[in-house]
Each structure stands twice: as structure tokens, then as C-alpha cells.
């Protein structure tokens, strides 16, 4: 573990300016991922700017009926928030399916979005990894692939984004608010994370010094009928093999007015299932339509030798989630 400086920030502007001015500085949220990485040599920042105590720790109602979630809101507090539980149940469920009680008590909203892949090679500095050390190669291509991508991977990286929360938020049309050296901007969550391409070292579109200050959840007709299901190797404290978040707006005649489907554990980013959505929009709910939707999404799947099981697993999980959300409406 390399020596480093630690600086608690009192204001957003100050935190952003401090990190922007130091090329090897990093923001520190709950530290549940970054501090581990410092211990094992994956991250070696020389300055940590602690943003966990900035006044960004509240969940506030927005005038249009949405919610603004401060970036420093802890995962456990967010999951327990009554407004989230009733208006955005997929988010609450996604949060509670992740990590452990102790970790959720520490982990922040902003940090959760920016956590890094759990690919075993990324986390082992003695092995080649393009994400950790650009140009060194991808060990997973010939190695252990159980937890790796089936969508949107490249020859440089087949890692997946590990967050449950992000997949839940993606199905709720979340928008990420960012404060950077050049000012503020809003990024739809779908555009925050990148696919690996030839630059897998970049997880997101954020520039150095840009700080997530909040996540906005808009008021939508589909968020209230939403859920999240995660499939994993153990009943708790394990990352998703696959997960599905879905949100549906149903008409009285049993057709789908609008919907969102997002998947975790299958791509370098939380994966929005646009093709599946397209099949279902306007359709009558039912197993046939659900199967067609899952198949449409999976036509673009490119599983690896070690994770072919993810294709039927994702199909079945999507089917189950859609059934659960429409029970009694078929």
C-alpha cells in the first residue's frame, strides 16, 4: 500500500478543484471498492479527497414528482426510503440484493455507480489486464469467464459492470448530475458507462475531476410497477451472474403502454434491453410476447466459452420478471 494524502472536502467546488488539479487524485466515497483496490495495488492514488461528508446526503422530492438522490446517500438509507420503496421498487430491491448490510451502510450512491469490475484478472495485479494496464492483454479471453459479458464486449475486454443499483436505476430512466471543472452537466444513466471498445481502461464518460453530485429519478408512468431479480452463485453476498430490472406501464386492456428493461452482469455497462422493449411496446402481456422479447434481445448475445449458460439464464430471468410484474393481468 503506497502512502497517500487524505483531504476531507467541505464543499463541492473545492473538492472538484482539488482533484482536477492533481492528476493522481481520486474522490473517496464510502471506500468499499477504492480502499480495497489500494490495498491490492489496483489503484494507487496519491491524494484522496473525501466527498462522503459533502452536503449531498439527502433524498429530495422534485417538483415534477420525481426524486433527487444525493451522491453521498448511503445504499442502505436509499433502499429503506419510503418514497423509493413505493414509487421506485426496482431500485430498492436492486440495492438490497447487493453486497452485505455492512457494505450498504458505507457505500454511497455516487460510488456505487463508479465501482469497478470484479473480473478476477482486473483485481490481480500479477496478471495481464487491459483495463488495469492498457495494452497488457486480456487474461479472461483464455481464462475464467463465468462472470463475464455476453453483450457488447471487445477483444480487449470482456468484463462486466458489477452494480445492481445501476441496473435498477437504468430501468427507471435515471439521470446523473455531474459537477466538473468546466461546470455542471446532466448525463442520462444509459450514457454514463461505456462499452469497452479499444479503451477498456475507461469505465465511464466522466473526465478527471468530474464529481457525481446526484442522481435524478423522473416521475414516469412505469416506475411504480417495477422490480429487480438477481441470479447468483450464493443466496447473498455474491455478484450477479445475470440480473433483470423491469418497469411496466400497463393499460386497462392488458397491453403495455411503455416499459423499460435493464440487465446486470451481462455487459461492460448496465445493459438496456432496447430490442426486448421494442417487441413488447404496445403488445398484450403474456408468455408468448415475453419469450419473443427475450429472444429478440438475445439474438445479439455473444457468449464466451465459459458463460454460455448466461443466455438461457437471462432469457428465463427476463421471463420471470415480466410474469411477476403482470401476474393477474394476463
Amino acid at each position: 500500500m503506497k502512502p497517500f494524502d487524505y483531504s476531507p472536502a467541505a464543499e463541492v467546488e473545492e473538492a472538484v478543484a482539488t482533484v482536477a488539479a492533481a492528476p493522481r487524485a481520486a474522490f473517496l466515497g464510502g471506500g468499499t471498492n477504492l480502499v480495497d483496490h489500494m490495498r491490492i495495488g489496483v489503484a494507487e492514488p496519491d491524494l484522496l479527497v473525501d466527498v462522503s461528508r459533502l452536503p449531498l446526503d439527502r433524498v429530495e422530492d422534485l417538483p415534477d414528482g420525481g426524486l433527487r438522490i444525493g451522491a453521498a446517500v448511503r445504499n442502505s438509507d436509499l433502499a429503506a426510503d419510503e418514497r423509493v420503496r413505493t414509487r421506485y421498487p426496482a431500485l430498492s430491491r436492486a440495492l438490497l440484493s447487493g453486497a452485505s448490510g455492512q457494505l450498504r451502510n458505507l457505500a454511497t450512491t455516487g460510488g456505487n455507480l463508479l465501482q469497478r469490475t470484479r473480473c478476477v484478472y482486473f483485481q490481480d495485479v500479477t496478471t495481464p489486464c487491459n483495463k488495469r494496464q492498457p495494452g497488457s492483454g486480456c487474461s479472461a479471453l483464455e481464462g475464467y469467464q463465468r462472470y463475464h459479458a455476453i453483450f457488447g464486449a471487445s477483444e480487449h475486454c470482456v468484463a462486466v459492470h458489477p452494480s445492481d443499483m445501476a441496473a435498477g436505476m437504468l430501468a427507471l430512466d435515471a439521470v446523473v448530475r455531474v459537477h466538473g471543472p468546466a461546470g455542471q452537466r446532466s448525463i442520462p444513466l444509459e450514457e454514463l458507462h461505456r462499452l469497452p471498445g479499444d479503451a477498456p481502461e475507461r469505465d465511464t464518460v466522466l473526465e478527471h475531476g468530474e464529481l457525481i453530485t446526484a442522481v435524478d429519478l423522473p416521475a414516469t408512468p412505469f416506475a411504480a410497477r417495477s422490480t429487480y431479480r438477481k441470479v447468483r452463485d450464493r443466496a447473498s453476498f455474491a455478484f450477479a451472474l445475470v440480473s433483470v430490472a423491469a418497469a411496466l406501464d400497463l393499460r386497462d386492456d392488458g397491453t403495455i403502454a411503455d416499459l423499460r428493461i435493464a440487465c446486470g452482469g451481462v455487459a461492460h455497462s448496465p445493459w438496456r434491453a432496447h430490442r426486448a422493449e421494442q417487441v413488447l411496446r404496445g403488445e398484450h402481456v403474456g408468455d408468448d410476447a415475453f419469450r419473443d422479447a427475450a429472444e429478440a434481445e438475445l439474438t445479439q448475445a455473444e457468449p464466451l466459452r465459459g458463460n454460455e449458460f448466461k443466455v438461457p439464464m437471462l432469457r428465463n430471468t427476463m421471463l420471470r420478471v415480466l410474469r411477476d410484474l403482470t401476474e393477474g393481468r394476463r
Partner: protein
Amino acid sequence: MTDQLTPRSIGIPLARIDGGAKVTGTAPYAYDQQVEHPAYLHPVQATVAKGRIVDLDTTAAEALDGVVAVLTHRNALALQDIDDPELQVVLQSDRIAFRGQLIGGVIADRPEVALEGADLVRVTYEQEPHDAELSAERDDLYVPDDVSGFPTDTRDGDVAAALERAEATVQQTYTTPAEHNNPMEPHTTVATWDGDHLLLHTSTQGVHVVRSALAPLFGLETGQVRVVSPYVGGGFGSKGKPHAPAVLAALAARLVPGRPVKLALTRRQMFELVGYRTPTISRVRLAADHEGRLSAISHEVVEQTSTVYEFLEQTAVPSRTMYAAPNRLTTHRVARLDVPVPFWMRAPGECPGMFGPEVAMDELAEECGLDPVELRIRNDTQTDPDSGKPFSHRDLVGCLREGARRFGWDRRDPRPGTGREGEWLIGTGVASATYPGNTQQGTRVRIRFSDGRYVVQLGAADIGTGTWT
């Protein structure tokens, strides 16, 4: 005198005498021992699976402020041959036998500096092709002399002929993955040399086991080594003998005489250095008549061990005594691989070895159209099929019947996937399990009676089960 045997504490809720200390975090586990001016040790581990160290550059680590010494095979004390290769090879040569093997350690004034120093040790290897993949198709599987003291193979009758004649058969292969010990308290040691006396505070399930292994390893009399272990935060068998890290701590402390050296493994290091259960591949064959009476039981196991130390899991041994059948076969075949050293992990043999045969019994029940509890009852035996000796006590049938009663087995819907509660599929199933009630000779206890009180002295361990209380 009989009134002395009336139990006063058994079955009564008791406050643990160490409960307060444990829940407040003040119980002194090995690493928590308050020692004067400690130094901290961080291991250096091999990053290749097989080969030789050709260069080991410790200059940068030694130059780091706060580093006290760097331990390598070049400055480590020579160890004695004690017929335990896992221990006696620690830092004795430039050979690498598995990825993660200990090849050195950095001793520093603070643990963070020791960790940084370990990262600064530059190692150059002459790498050799390694072989670390277990499969039943390997052509180099060997027949060990025995498996942890049990016969490697047993044969009675003719399994193949029984399978030919059988009205119902099951022939399947079942696998279990490698399983790693990782108790809440990792393996920790605080080692202090005082002249030619070694004091070890270490997390162990047997202080005498540690002493009797390490004393001769360091060329000492047993009395020159003292091992202290008041609390153990879980062991699961992995702390049933000392492993390489305890030797590393003692070697490191030798470089700083008189100064205690503290070592606590990280979670990740636990996967490579304290033993684990081999993956197992079990080929199980059962033959029965249409009423489910077994005519043959065959359990053929393929598993792995390390090139450093031959530890063998007695995977097929429980199949020798579980059910009666005139034709029986059990075998163990082993691949010796460039992998970390396996060792005891919670019910070695019984745990992975019961899985395949019990699933096969369920498949046989399905094949015969029988209730799986009834199938097991029909094949019970009061004589050990292996030795021919009667059991002193065996009540598997009673266990199965009582279990079935308590679980409402007679109201069960045997069709899979039919019971659902919310998001959960709820079903019932049955499996037999066994564990031997072994006794060991040679326990020594000193009991004195003075001033109306008994003083009992023995080398015991409390692995969290309440021995102190």
C-alpha cells in the same frame, strides 16, 4: 458418589465466560496479543505456478523507510527434515511448486510499510510449463498407498456382473468444486525468539500439534517452544496443523531476535496457504432390484493433491459403510498437480463423498418408483459392510423416520417445482449423512486437588464452540 454425575449445566442456558470480551472485541486472539515493540510481516508470494527464482531484488524494499529486514530463501534459517514437506520447504530453495507459494517476507515497523515493501520486491523467474487442471481423463492418475490412513481401494464381489443382472441401475458422475477454508479469524501468528527459545501466539486448533511440529523443524527440544492460543475464531480443520505461514513468521522473527513479529494473512492469501478441499469427481454406480434392494454399490473417485505434500481426501470411504450390498467397489485415483497444498476442511471425506452417492440414491428411488426415505430404509444395515463387524450403535432408520415425521414428509408433493412461496420455490428432499465418532489415545491431562478445588491442566482449544465456558 452417583449424585456427582447429576448434570447441573448441560441443557441449561449459560452465559459464556468469554462472551462479553468477544462481543466487545477485547478478547485477545493471537494477533491481538499485546507485545513490546512488534514488527509486522507481509509475505511475498510466487506469481508463477512452476519454475525457479533466478533473481530476487530486495534493494528497493530494504531502502523503504520503516522496513526492518527482508526475508528470502537466501537468508532464511535452514530447517530440519521432519517428514512434513509443506513446512520444511518454506524458503529453503529457489523452487516454485505452485502459484501463491511463499517466497519471502518483508518485516517493517508498520503493517502498511510491510505491504508496500512486499510490492517492491522484484522477482525474476525461470518459468516452467505448469499442470494444474484436474480431470478424470488424465492418463497420469496414480494409485496412492493409502488415503489418510484408509485403504485406497476396496472390492467385494463383482459390481459389473451385478449391474448386468440388475432390474434398476444408476450410473452417473458427480463433481464437487475446490472448497477453501476462510474462517472469520484468518491464520495469524506472533513469533518471538528469546535466545534459542521460540514463543508463538498463533491461531490453532492444537497447541501441542504446533509445538511438536515446529520444535524439531527448528532443531529445538519441545520444551524450547511455547505455543499460546487462548481463542480461535474458527478453524474448520485448517488450523488442525501449522501451515507454511506460521513457519514464515518464525523464520522472520529469527532475523530480529527478541522482537515479536506479527503476521495476519489477508483473505486472499487464505486461499493459497492454509489448505483447502480438493475438487472431487465421483463416478457412482448403483444396481438394485425393482424393490430398490441394492445389489451393487460402486464409488470411484478422482481427486488432486499437490507436488509439495501428498494430502489425500478419503472421499469414497463413507460409501464403504452407508448401505448394504453384496457387490461393492470403492477406489481413489489421484492427480499430482502444481497447485497449493490441500488439507483438512470440515468433514474431509464425508462432506464431498456423501454428495454423489446420496444424489444417486435419489435417482435410484425415481428409477424404482420408490419414496427416497423408504429406499434408504430398505438398504440399511446393522453390520458394517466393509469390516463385517456389527455397529455398536446405528440408528439411521430412526433418524430418517423421525426426520420424515418432523418435516411432514407424508404430506409432501414429490413433483419438483410445485411448491412456491412468493419468489421462492420450496421443496423437500432427503439425504443421509455420517461422521465417525473417533477416539484418540494419548491425551495427557494434569489434575491436582488442593484446598478443596480441582486444578485441571490440558492443551485444549476453543474454536468458538464454548470450551472455556
